[in-house]
């Protein structure tokens, strides 16, 4: 850890830039603890309350998978690059991600149907 700290101090003589890295490390910690985690808790509680229990697990799984896909795809989805190099973020990300989300929820819906059929068969 100290090696890393030394490396950084050595490579970055600029005091303002040094402070920036530390601010980012602390900031990301806080952003997670004060923003991200509470939001996840609230959404989760909402799901627990609003979604019928027999599909709750599948809904949670689809939500989790969807969130990760959107999170990793957020920079190209938001179009963070706006320069003149057309090979950076070259495709239409919105529709493509939408297709992936439909696939995720489609698989989820399918698993609910398959499960219900299986349960019905077991009862018989």
């Amino acid at each position, binding site marked *: 850890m100290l090696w890393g700290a030394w490396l950084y101090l050595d490579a*970055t003589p600029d005091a303002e830039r040094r402070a920036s890295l530390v601010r980012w490390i602390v900031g990301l*910690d806080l952003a997670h603890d004060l923003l991200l985690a509470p939001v996840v808790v609230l*959404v989760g509680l909402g799901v*627990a309350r609003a979604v019928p229990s027999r599909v709750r697990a599948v809904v949670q799984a689809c939500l*989790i998978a969807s969130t990760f896909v959107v999170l990793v795809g957020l920079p190209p989805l938001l179009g963070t690059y706006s320069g003149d190099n057309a090979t950076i973020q070259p495709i239409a990300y919105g529709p493509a991600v939408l297709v992936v989300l439909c696939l995720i929820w489609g698989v989820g819906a399918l698993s609910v149907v398959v499960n219900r059929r299986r349960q019905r068969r077991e009862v018989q």
Partner: protein
Amino acid sequence: MVSGIWVVAGRHLDTVGGVRTATRITPRSPLRDERTAAVLGIALGVTFSICFATGLLSHLVQDPGGWFHWPARPAGLYRVTQGVHITTGIVSIPLLLAKLWAVFPKLFEWPPARSVAHALERLALLPLIGGGLLLVFTGLANINIYRPWAFSFRPGHYAAAWVVMGAMAVHIGAKIHTTRQALGRHPAEAIEAPSAASPRGGLDRRGFLTTVFGAAGLVGVLSVGQTVEPLARLVVLAPRRPDIGPQGFPVNRTARSVALEEVDLDAYRLVIDGPAVRRQLSLTYADLLAAPQHTASLPIACVEGWSSSQRWRGVRVRDLLDRAGVDSSAESVVYAMHESERLRTAPLSAAHANDADTLLALYVNDEPLAPDHGFPVRLIGPNRPGVHQTKWVGRIEVVG
């Protein structure tokens, strides 16, 4: 009273978001929560370690520092190591967020420190978590050419990597006992609560882990096509597709960004000079076209994790160095024509200069190079990171 509130908060949070890491049938078992955290922790240990090793390699390739010699073969080695680096980084994102979720209740542990060792262990979490988040965030943002921070990416990302590995070592040391316990024993309570049936119908631990690992695999598959060309059509989350760009592959620096959209071919000279040449050479474009040509299929493997294989044709570097009377053990520096200082030079070790496939390319896929791809001449060689495949080559200085 304060500690009472913490305890209540902690107990409620063991069902964070309705997803449980412990069932209610039995009293909350610390082993259960630890199990989820342990599995995710091990997964992260693996991905972060691989990411670190490949990242360190990439750093050394770009900043060799005298003792490090990067070979010219296998031709696709850097493409693989850097592709692995970016992919393990991306796959770490769901794993890291899921791990943080799983251990979030422990943030409210009371008392905050049972001993000095415990306090240090908890304090080391700040650089571990903050640094880990920083690495994946800056990594993902950087490959998307998005840099909203004031520090310089490479030094910051590199230093943070060492900090995180150190903090991870502390964390592993602190948790090794709990981890072994959590994964080793099968608690008797498990028999009463088969993980398939969670009493409140939400995801149980097995379902949660399956979802997280599945999602990690999914985001990996949807990004890896930027370097694994057969999977290019699956690229939905990555910022490059290896088959999209002028002449069929991506561009990092455009000709416009270095003011080289037009090159006066009459005035163009490729100069080979330096203290270790016996004959200085100054070649025109026509001279290069007239020289014996050699074809090679080689990848451009960008530091940002995309790669694309193309067919290049040009003059062997070794042939020109021979013409200049250069020894086969000589090291050189390749200079681009542009004024911009950034990425203007690239090292050319003897091993790379002597390789039969290291070319001063004039053609790609049977067409003269596009301006964005380095017209009139670019360096292309096996196992070189993209930043070292110098475009718009103006000079090779043989230093010794």
